[in-house]
């Protein structure tokens, strides 16, 4: 289509049809003052600040809402435009309080900045200003000074358009307008913190950050979020060597201009009182602070003793999937150099059938930016909103356009997106449902039905999903965290591959953690005869090296993990926090979290992002790569003389082109679909968003949100009725261990299932994340 020629402030620019005057001006780098306009949100044109002069228009026009036309002449800074803009500013300031000196937004306030240019030095109004009462919007967003609101409705539109849930609205009319949440409700979206950034004034501010620093006192450093597989780019703001606040760094190909609340508010966990700041040694059951020298020498001595007494393969290493590439690489180099292949980072995985059968490193299967371009999508086994808040936002926006999103999952949680079709099945039937979809597509396209799925009976839900997928041009199949943690994860992988091949589309993993792909790159998993994360605990080792994890919360079977680690002769835990797990250890070494170390994370699309430490490590904590380097030296393993984390990274990546090594294909996984499965209640586990890793678990404000509520035993009312249970009653859940939980009713769960969250101390005694479960009245 032909472009439109527009003249803005005497300069010519070409813009496509449908572009606005604002976009034309932005293309020329001309700034038009505005408040309500935001490039990622719909146009509201209600602040009127962007009024500009347009040739042949009698009145000034709002640049954000005026479509550009061919030959249009616009003046953004002419006398007429400026008069209009100043008039609007005068109106905006009529009721805006003059409390900038005590306002948290002071210094980074768009109204303050623009008032310098467009506002008067005194006001012509001496009437009392309007007062708007404060609101309680929950533990993250402070709405204490709503008199400051200028009613741009960015927060409202963000909720509707990006977060997918309209939690804020503008009530009343004219000068009585107010931004509120619905009577008595808090703002619970997992993306809500972005409203703080969007608010052009100090009406919505960050509750945890409130009154703790001024913007000009903060230094800004770039970093990468370690909380999910996206690798959101962050600006970490620090004051006196303390992380005060985290905000997004715009990266259009990853997080756009957003970050999730987990990325934003997890920093409170970095400043937690539970931080471990000194190496500690257990002597006769009592902890003693020791020097690094002593601690590391003790670790080396004990490891050598155990190797000599029992052999190197009696030592196992469990590495957090949040650890950096450098840390993972050195950990495996250390273990292998020491003679043990027992190392794994896939702590919540239970089925390792695909090991040795993979052609490459598992990944998303495509670039993140390409998600929006898919027209048919199948997401299997994912608590999408909570596991991948920003990927969910991409699917959400695409689903409003031309993308059909189909879901196969074990719980019908509201994903806040337009779901075309869904099949909600008990967890043990997840592979069968995927198999049914394959069979339905093969039948509809007159292709030979793969023998593995031939015996399945195709349900209507599968047929509808198949019809949707088959009707598209650009289909994509995604396996979520639950599919990776599933006891038949290998089969799910093979089935997704079969489906994608049949459709001629892509398939991939959404990615369990920040460095899940990086773990494969670093070879931080058994490569030969070594034991994987499950086997290492099933067959207890004499010694464990734990890196960055809390085994009673971060493992697939926390009960087994605690038991195996409790029985071990020697356990060294390299950790940022003192936790109950550390009590099972013999040595705990303080680890610097992501803000205090340099490192690299490889996100789900295989993009390798290196970052620097933004503050000095707390106390005597040290970056993980340095701890492992010294330990490698003390153990006399060759090749541990690195000067920098960059040197470790370069060695870890080698001369390989990572992007060429990414491949989700598996060969030779045996499929056994449709076999009689166990009857009786099955457990469904999710990893709630604010229990997902050690840092988040200590972020105080996040722990007050509704997503961090005490886990309940959720079941459908039919299940509750058959067991004679009522909501709110106490039940004893028996798996391999027991737990007493409150009953919650959720009719969106499939029959014969009970949903019990993982990653919480109240449920960690139970056992594996999936499997048979019994429920009895407590």
């Amino acid at each position, binding site marked *: 289509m032909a472009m439109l020629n527009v003249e803005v402030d005497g300069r010519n620019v070409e813009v496509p049809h449908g572009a606005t005057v604002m976009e034309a001006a932005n293309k020329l780098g001309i700034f038009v003052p505005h408040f309500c306009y935001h490039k990622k949100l719909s146009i509201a044109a209600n602040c009127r600040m962007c009024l500009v002069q347009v040739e042949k228009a009698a009145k000034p026009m709002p640049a954000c809402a005026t479509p550009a036309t061919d030959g249009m002449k616009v003046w953004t800074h002419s006398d007429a435009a400026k008069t209009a803009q100043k008039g609007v500013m005068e109106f905006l300031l009529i009721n805006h309080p003059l409390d900038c000196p005590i306002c948290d937004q002071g210094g980074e306030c768009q109204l303050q900045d623009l008032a310098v240019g467009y506002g008067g030095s005194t006001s012509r109004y001496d009437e009392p200003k309007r007062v708007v009462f404060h609101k309680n919007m929950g533990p993250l967003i402070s709405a204490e000074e709503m008199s400051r609101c200028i009613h741009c409705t960015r927060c409202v539109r963000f909720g*509707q358009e990006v977060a997918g*849930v*309209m*939690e*804020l*609205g*503008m*009530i*009343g*009319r004219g000068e009585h307008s107010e931004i*509120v*949440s*619905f*009577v*008595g*409700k808090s703002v619970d979206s997992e993306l809500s913190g972005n409203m703080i950034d969007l608010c052009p004034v100090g009406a919505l501010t960050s509750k945890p950050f409130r009154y703790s620093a001024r913007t000009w006192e903060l230094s800004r450093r770039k970093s990468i979020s370690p909380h999910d597989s996206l690798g959101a780019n962050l600006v970490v703001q620090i004051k006196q060597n303390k992380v005060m606040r985290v905000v997004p760094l715009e990266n259009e190909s990853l997080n756009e201009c957003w970050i999730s609340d987990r990325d934003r508010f997890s920093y409170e966990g970095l400043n937690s009182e539970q931080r471990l700041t000194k190496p500690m040694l257990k002597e006769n059951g009592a902890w003693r602070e020791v020097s690094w020298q002593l601690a590391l020498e003790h670790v080396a001595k004990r490891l050598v003793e155990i190797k000599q007494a029992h052999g190197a393969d009696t030592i196992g290493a469990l590495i957090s999937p949040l650890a950096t590439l450098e840390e993972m690489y050195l950990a495996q180099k250390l273990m292998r150099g020491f003679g043990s292949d027992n190392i794994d980072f896939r702590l919540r995985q239970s089925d390792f059938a695909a090991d040795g059968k993979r052609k490459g490193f598992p990944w998303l299967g495509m670039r993140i930016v390409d998600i929006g371009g898919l027209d048919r999508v199948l997401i299997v086994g994912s608590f999408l909103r909570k596991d991948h808040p920003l990927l969910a936002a991409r699917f959400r926006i695409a689903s409003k356009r031309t993308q059909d999103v189909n879901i196969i999952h074990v719980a019908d*949680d509201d994903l806040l997106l337009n779901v075309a079709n869904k099949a909600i099945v008990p967890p043990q039937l997840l592979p069968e449902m995927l198999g049914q979809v394959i069979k339905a597509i093969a039948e509809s396209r007159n292709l030979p039905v793969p023998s593995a799925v031939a015996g399945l009976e195709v349900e209507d839900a599968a047929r509808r999903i198949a019809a949707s997928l088959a009707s598209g041009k650009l289909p994509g199949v995604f396996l979520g965290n639950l599919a990776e943690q599933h006891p038949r994860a290998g089969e799910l992988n093979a089935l997704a591959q079969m489906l994608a091949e049949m459709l001629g589309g892509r398939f991939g993993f959404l990615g369990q953690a920040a460095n899940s792909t990086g773990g494969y790159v670093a070879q931080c998993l058994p490569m030969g005869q070594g034991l994987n994360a499950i086997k290492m605990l099933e067959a207890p080792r004499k010694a464990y090296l734990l890196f960055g994890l809390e085994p009673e919360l971060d493992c697939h079977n926390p009960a087994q993990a605690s038991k195996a680690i409790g029985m071990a002769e020697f356990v060294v835990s390299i950790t940022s926090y003192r936790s109950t797990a550390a009590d099972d250890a013999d040595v705990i070494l303080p680890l610097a979290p992501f803000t205090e170390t340099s490192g690299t994370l490889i996100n789900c699309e295989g993009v390798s992002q290196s970052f620097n430490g933004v503050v000095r490590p707390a106390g005597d904590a040290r970056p993980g790569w340095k701890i492992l380097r010294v330990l490698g030296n003390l153990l006399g393993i060759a090749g541990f003389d690195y000067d920098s984390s960059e040197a470790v990274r370069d060695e870890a990546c080698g001369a390989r082109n990572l992007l060429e090594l990414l491949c989700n294909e598996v060969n030779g996984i045996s499929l056994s679909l449709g076999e009689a499965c166990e009857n009786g209640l099955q457990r469904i586990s999710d990893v709630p968003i604010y229990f997902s890793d050690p840092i988040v678990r200590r972020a105080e404000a996040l722990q007050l949100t509704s997503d961090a509520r005490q886990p309940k035993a*959720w079941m459908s009312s039919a299940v509750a009725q058959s067991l004679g249970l009522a909501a709110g009653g106490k039940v004893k859940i028996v798996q391999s261990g027991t737990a007493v939980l409150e009953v*919650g*009713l*959720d*009719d*969106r769960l499939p029959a014969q299932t009970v949903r019990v969250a993982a990653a919480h101390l109240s449920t960690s005694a139970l056992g594996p994340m999936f499997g048979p479960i019994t429920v009895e009245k407590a």
Partner: protein
Amino acid sequence: MSPQINAPVLSVEALTKIDREIAKYPLDQKQSAVMAALIVAQDEKGWLAPETMDFIANYLGMPSVAVYEVATFYNMYNLQQTGRFKLTICTCLPCGLQGALAAADHLKKQLGIDFNETTADGQFTLKEGECMGACAMAPVVLVNNKRMCDYMSVEKLDALVAELRNSSPQKV
């Protein structure tokens, strides 16, 4: 995560009326019926309690706060309980120029209440209204959103109050 369980707040008759309104719009645009649904609900309940608005939001598949936005935008929706009779007097400019302000003062004096207040016996609530499109017949008073009284002189106001006060409890 918690499931939404909504006991029906409105009667079957009211729901039938709302369904009739919903039927006027395309299937995927049920929220177009929100204003009508709020009217039906208010007719039945007398006012719009948060749980009523929440119920309507669920019924129409829209966010609660969006219903709240609509209910607060129009001042004929009652967000607080009112007396048996809600008297709304227009005080916009044309009415104001034609004696509406004096009429309002008279009503306030007669009833012993100010705007947005309810008499102690729960009979009358006085509200300030916006233009009702009857400027030529000022002052105008609206009784319970349904009955419009025009040319409201002092005598007619007194007669209206007396009539309402003596009316049987069922009849409005």
